[in-house]
């Protein structure tokens, strides 16, 4: 007997799917505003093209590897290849009140945006060809497995008892650590360290941040997979964390100097990252605390990155990596069964075990993402080449990789 489809839940998951889809172009603008004029189209495209590439990959086999029948908790089976057996009947393992296809489509949008997030590490010099190959492999070798471990029935990190409501580990930790690994493998931009790379259009970044914030309601709220109280909790928590993080970031910067708008919107995004794993497990006041603490962590992580002279260009590690790590830990501290009985209590509610599982899960996923990415990057470097030659870089990737000029 099939569980009946609930139209309200379906409506909510569908619109959440659209919201999360929109986050990829939003990210494109968030990133694009921060690069130089000669690389804006290239940077926009590094995000945009994931909607195409992973949009195909996910249907063909990405979903099956992530959510197909578990092969020993390590990877999904091939039973959903080409969305076979993914139809209008619910998959009761994950979302008993909506069509299975809706779950698969919603999950697709997470798979799409994650490699796009990584692209911030190597903008303004990456070879487009290498990026296409890399992200296809990454989606297959990192994203699908980690999604399986953390979210799939039988996944081994899930079995550790680790919680990840909406992708703190699956999306942000993997993206952050992979960005770090890639940045260590690829050469720096010319003049990095000597010349300031001024963001060419900060309003684009603000636009991106505004759309990301709204989209995150679908990212975190939709992860309830139903239009219920839990979805509302997740949204309120997301907003609270974003607001608190933006405020705190502003205050830190103000004390030091002046509050840059780029900083304020970055703070908001960092807050959203940090609350992602916890969104459905904590109270709004805990969410505020999580956001408020995330801000200084990322703020100083960026400074540290500069100190190390590492050209991880748009600070994916500092924003998504450390934000995601803190979120995983914070879930272990602030989670409360009073909010979500399907979750667990955290340290603050007297249970230390969750925190251990959280850290374990985060470290395993992060280390795996780092290792595979570094290997992939090195192999690509030795074969197709990771970065364009210096002259092409100076001319700009818009011209050299795409034969275009953004503005005339």
């Amino acid at each position, binding site marked *: 007997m099939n569980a009946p489809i609930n139209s309200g839940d379906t409506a909510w998951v569908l619109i959440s799917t659209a919201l999360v889809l929109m986050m990829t172009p939003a990210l494109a603008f968030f990133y694009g505003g921060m690069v130089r004029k000669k690389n804006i189209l290239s940077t926009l495209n590094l995000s945009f093209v994931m909607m195409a590439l992973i949009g195909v990959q996910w249907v063909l086999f990405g979903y099956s590897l992530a959510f197909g029948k578990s092969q020993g908790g390590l990877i999904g089976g091939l039973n959903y290849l080409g969305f076979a057996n993914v139809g209008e009947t619910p998959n009761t393992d994950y979302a008993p009140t909506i069509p299975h296809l809706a779950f698969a489509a919603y999950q697709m949008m997470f798979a799409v945006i994650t490699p796009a997030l990584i692209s911030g590490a190597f903008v303004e010099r990456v070879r487009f060809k290498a990026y296409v190959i890399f992200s296809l492999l990454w989606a297959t070798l990192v994203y699908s497995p980690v999604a399986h471990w953390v979210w799939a029935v039988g996944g081994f990190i899930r079995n550790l008892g680790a919680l990840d409501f909406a992708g703190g580990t699956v999306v942000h930790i993997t993206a952050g650590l992979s960005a770090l690994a890639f940045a260590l493998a690829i050469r720096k931009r010319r003049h990095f360290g000597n010349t*300031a790379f*001024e*963001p060419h259009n900060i309003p684009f970044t603000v636009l991106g941040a505004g759309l990301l914030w709204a989209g995150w309601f679908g990212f975190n709220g939709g992860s309830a997979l139903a239009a219920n109280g839990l979805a509302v909790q997740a949204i309120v928590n997301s907003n609270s964390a974003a607001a608190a993080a933006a405020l705190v970031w502003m205050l830190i*910067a103000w004390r*030091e*100097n*002046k*509050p*840059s708008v*780029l*900083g304020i919107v*970055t703070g908001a995004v960092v807050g959203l990252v940090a609350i992602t794993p916890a969104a459905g497990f904590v109270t709004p006041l805990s969410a505020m605390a999580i956001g408020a603490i995330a801000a200084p962590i*990322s*703020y*100083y992580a*960026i*400074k540290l990155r*500069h100190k190390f002279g590492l050209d991880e260009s748009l*600070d994916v590690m500092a924003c998504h990596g450390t934000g995601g790590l803190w979120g995983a830990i914070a879930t272990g501290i602030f989670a409360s069964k009073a909010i979500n009985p399907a979750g667990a209590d955290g340290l603050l509610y007297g249970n230390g075990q969750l925190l251990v599982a959280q850290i374990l899960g985060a470290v395993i996923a992060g280390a795996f993402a780092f290792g595979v990415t570094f290997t992939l990057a090195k192999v690509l470097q030795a074969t197709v080449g990771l970065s364009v030659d210096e002259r092409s870089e100076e001319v700009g990737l818009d011209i050299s990789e795409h034969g275009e000029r953004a503005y005339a």
Partner: protein
Amino acid sequence: MKKIEAIFREEKLNDVKQALYNIGVYGMNVVEVRGHGRQGGIELIGRSGTYKVDLLPRIQMNIILSDHNLQKVIDTICEAARTGNKGDGIIFVYPVEDVIRIRTGERGKQALSYEGDIDTRKK
């Protein structure tokens, strides 16, 4: 005839323009440049921390005018554009060999006359 190239702070454009109108100088054109001089650069704020930029936005105002108005215009610009801080800018003077109005075909000084301008006023 001379050409004045005055390079000064963006934010002074309105003041300089107004000062020139006041003395009857109407022919001019401006372009946004980025420059470097005695003022080394400025600090901008990034996501976290600051970074230095060494080419700063300036307005370059070009005025072609008769020799006898040169000093007065220079003085007017200097006064209107000065803040007293490093980076106020600089004025260059070049020789001009000829001027031609596209619409009327007027040449030379004739081409540089405007209704109610500095020369008319003197009379």
